[in-house]
């Protein structure tokens, strides 16, 4: 081996957005194709990122290819801006994309990268949502071969998926798919909308924001363009339903922190062993709480006045 070679120790700085410009351009081309063919899994040569495959490298490549100096980025994982993985991804973008602002406020972001959740607050036309995807193909539960799945998608042959739903109903009297709910986009391709809960699936439908889905390990990019049909797979007589947050008495549970009754709740036990329910979307929860506080203050001021 070459013993005279010295490692260049000053080569510490990375280019803006980490990936080389050709790679980013390629990702953007794949994004354009994905938008043109809603729900189609566009193959691309996914690059290795300096974090584990499965930790959001597909979403990260989308973000790094799209983000520019004028963007404000929000990164969430499990609905929270402060979870380890969200912090890790955000720090990496901050490190490699100097000048990009970050925020925790949903409405302040131009670009939102998320794992497993769509923010509760409705998104706008000025925003892009990037979802991290572990399994890009909804058909994988019924067909392991990618080549055969590709043909099935081309022919919009989703009969085996419908049979799976039907078998669920026969066996359990319920459709048992909890998350990654197969959803038909623009009347043709059925997508795996990433492991968002069913609660978030209706937010895909006619979304004002562009929704991009990136699977780094599986090397696919697909999109739900703005104002596009997104219909969860169901039957006329067995309709799609979101998670049920009612208690035994049939009353909708509220967030124990902000009191919201219109958000996806995380369930956990406190130290006394009691069940606690709290908003999964931490920014939404904070906003509800802040609104109450300011409302309470206003009321107090009025009382004083």
């Amino acid at each position, binding site marked *: *081996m070459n013993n005279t070679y010295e*490692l260049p120790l000053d080569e510490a700085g*990375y280019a803006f957005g*980490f*990936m*080389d410009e050709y*790679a980013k351009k390629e990702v953007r081309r794949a994004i354009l194709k994905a938008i043109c063919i809603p729900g189609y899994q566009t*193959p691309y*040569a996914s690059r*290795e*990122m*300096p974090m*584990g*495959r*499965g*930790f959001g*490298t597909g979403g990260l490549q989308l973000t790094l290819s799209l983000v520019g100096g004028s963007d404000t980025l929000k990164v969430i*994982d*499990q*609905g*929270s801006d*402060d*979870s*380890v*993985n*969200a*912090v*890790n991804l955000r720090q990496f973008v901050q490190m490699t994309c100097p000048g990009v602002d970050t925020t925790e406020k949903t409405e302040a972001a131009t670009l939102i990268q998320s794992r*497993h959740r769509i923010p509760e607050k409705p998104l706008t036309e000025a925003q892009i949502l990037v979802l991290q995807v*572990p399994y890009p193909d909804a058909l994988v539960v019924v067909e392991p*071969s*990618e*080549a055969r799945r*590709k043909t099935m998608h081309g022919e919009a042959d989703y009969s085996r998926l419908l049979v799976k739903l039907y078998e669920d109903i026969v066996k*359990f*009297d*319920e459709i*048992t*798919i*909890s*998350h*990654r709910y197969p959803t038909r986009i623009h009347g043709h391709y059925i997508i795996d909308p990433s492991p*968002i*809960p*069913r*609660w978030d699936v209706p937010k895909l439908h006619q979304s004002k924001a562009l929704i991009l889905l990136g699977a780094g*390990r599986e*090397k*696919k990019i697909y999109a739900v363009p703005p104002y596009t049909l997104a219909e969860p797979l169901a039957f006329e007589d067995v309709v799609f339903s979101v*998670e*049920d947050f009612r*208690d*035994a008495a049939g009353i909708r549970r509220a967030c124990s922190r902000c009191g919201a009754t219109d958000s*996806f*709740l*995380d369930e956990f036990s*406190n*130290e006394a062993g*009691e069940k606690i329910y709290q908003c*999964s979307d931490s920014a939404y929860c904070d906003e509800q709480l802040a609104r109450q506080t300011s409302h309470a203050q206003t009321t107090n001021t009025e009382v004083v006045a």
Partner: protein
Amino acid sequence: MGYVAIKGGKAAIEGAAAATDMLRAGSEHAEPLVLDAIEGQLRLLVSRVVSEGGLYHPKLAALAIKQFQGDTLEAAFALRAYRSTKPRLLETPPQNTAHMRVIRRISSAFKDIPGGQMLGPTYDYALRLLDLGLVDENPEDFRAIARRFLADAPETELPDSFPKVLDALRAEGLLPPLKPVAGAPFDITRQPLIFPVPRAAALATMARAETGSLLAIAYSNMRGYGDVHPTIAELRVGYVPVMLPHPVTGEPMEAGEVLMTECEVVAMFEGDAEGKGCGGKPVFTLGYGACFGHNEVKAISMAILDRALQKGMKDGAANPSEDPEFVLLHVDGVDSMGFASHYKMPHYVTFQSDMDRLRTTQAKAGIDTVRQKDTA
């Protein structure tokens, strides 16, 4: 607050990094590893990392091994991520391994091969007895090893390279004639695999595959889930000169050399038209394996799988090792280790959703105990 581990991420990540670094140092009295020592004395580890990382950079591989405390998956991963930051500047023309400056070459097909068998550095016939003499070596011991080796060096200079065994077999008409492949080779770093894929894509994928994954699938074929029954026509290890076109004249010039392992296996002939050579006579079939570094088990596994995949692409897969999708999508170390690791991340939301489905289904089945207990 035990549960809400999801919060306070920043401090947790910094703490984890500090703890990892402490364990990397071992103790405050430990001698830091020197990169040259890793590159030279752990050369097979470096070989594995450059091969799986898909980047021939032994020095950076040594650094990655040091940084990731000897984890080959992580070290190869770091090389790949480093590679993502570099543009592809040009396409290399095919390199001729007949020009390899060999350090070892054997054939298990013939007792004598043109140029002769050259065992070279190998543990194949070493007794795997722990050598307690290595426990306390000093630099003088190393110098003595070098002196003894050089004193025994043959008087006559060996040739740098040797003819390929396959060329002799081909001249005898026992192998199919070489067919030129049209078009640019498939670059797996720039194109995703869309099945069916050309053989070039399969070979490139396996060349940077994780050694253990390749071995496991190849072994399934050797044991009976498949029937390649290979004979190693030639296995060679050595330095291949990398020829690149001169930027001005376009003439090929040597830009450097890479340590490589190459393996060519010959398998039984096939009776049908495709298995026939010129003149319509049956000929042996071939499998090819090659990778960066000195990795013989990997090159052999790859050659066997290349043969198995060629058979699968022609006749349909009768075994997992003959199925291109099954093999090529499951042998990448960066992909598979990343996905196995990702299960450690929080999955609170999806699990909440799972519980919703289970409770609803339980309720419908009349097993309503969970809801009855849950009075919150």
